[in-house]
């Protein structure tokens, strides 16, 4: 009788200690910037020392560069990108009626290239595509993320949400296990952030280069020993949409510097 009573108390205490911290940690979106060391923050804040600006400047040059065989450039349709692209990235990923699904910024660039410029799509993680996404996203620096998750985007959003909370890989961890339940903790000496994507494409010091959201998703998937989806897959676009919504209220930091 006494033994059963003690066991009951123990179980009660154990249950109480379960993820109460999850809600607190995620009540307010926090940019990855707030988890950085002072040195890395300074690197991001200094427009010259921030290596991501190399891609932004290259994107500015590519904007005016005509591409064979159409002979058109981005500039042909979108003159004055500092104005015409201002805030564009804050609405991506978004539903495209023409594509019949939710697409991200990279896919929009490629649709423009194929349909309007009669050129070839750019592969993920190429210097050219990274330069363009960096440049376009940089035009929204400081602006608040504002994605639509209702209407035709709703199924995509739901799939993305499900993906975020789905355990995966040999380590059997979901995104939420780290980025909601252990925010502020440490993994391999590095702080665990909320996994917000408001600074993408980022200059990641580990990679020594600029990288897209989908490269980061794949990297995280591999870290939990799960088979990553290909960059540009609908699974990642859905997750990207959910992640952008999750960070609503945060401002665009592109190009952010991260560890």
């Amino acid at each position, binding site marked *: 009788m006494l033994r059963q009573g003690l066991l009951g108390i123990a179980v009660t205490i154990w249950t109480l200690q379960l993820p109460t911290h999850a809600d607190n940690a995620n009540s307010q979106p926090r940019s990855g910037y707030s988890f950085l060391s002072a040195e890395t923050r300074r690197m991001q804040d200094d427009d*010259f*020392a921030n*290596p991501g*600006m*190399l*891609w932004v*400047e*290259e994107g500015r040059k590519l904007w005016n560069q005509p591409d064979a065989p159409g002979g058109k450039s981005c500039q042909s349709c979108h003159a004055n990108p500092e104005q015409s692209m201002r805030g564009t990235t804050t609405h991506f990923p978004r539903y495209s009626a023409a594509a019949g699904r939710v697409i991200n910024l990279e896919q929009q660039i490629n649709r423009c290239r194929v349909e309007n410029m009669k050129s070839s799509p750019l592969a993920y993680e190429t210097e050219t595509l990274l330069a363009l996404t960096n440049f376009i996203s940089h035009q929204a620096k400081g602006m608040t993320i504002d994605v639509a998750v209702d209407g035709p985007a709703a199924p995509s959003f739901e799939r993305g949400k499900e993906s975020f909370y789905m355990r995966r890989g040999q380590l059997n961890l979901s995104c939420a296990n780290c980025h909601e339940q252990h925010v502020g903790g440490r993994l391999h000496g590095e702080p665990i952030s909320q996994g917000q994507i408001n600074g993408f494409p980022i200059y990641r010091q580990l990679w*020594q*280069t600029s990288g897209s959201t989908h490269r980061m998703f794949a990297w995280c998937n591999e870290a939990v020993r799960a088979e990553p989806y290909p960059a540009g897959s609908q699974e990642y676009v859905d997750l990207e949409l959910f992640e952008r919504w999750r960070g609503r209220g945060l401002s665009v930091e592109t190009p952010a510097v991260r560890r």
Partner: protein
Amino acid sequence: MANSRIKVPESARVGEAVEIRAMVMHPMENGYNVDTQGTTIPVHIITDFVCRYDGAEVIRVKLEPGLSANPFFSFYLKATKTGAVDFEWVDQDGTVTTAGATLRVG
């Protein structure tokens, strides 16, 4: 030619020490990295960085593997007269990347 960024003040007073900054986009492969197939990525680095002020060499850096990608140099230059500040990065394969600006003194 690699993508580069430089920062040279437009003007300076005679004798003033001005900050010069230069960065170049380069992977600076150290020869120890492997690709997704497990194949070693060979060494690929910038070997020399040179800055000339009004034709005269003011700084020369010999780079080695082990430096971070996209090397960034910052140094001070004593402004003496109006002249060109030219930068040069030499890749190990012989490719030369150049950039330059004019510093107005007086």
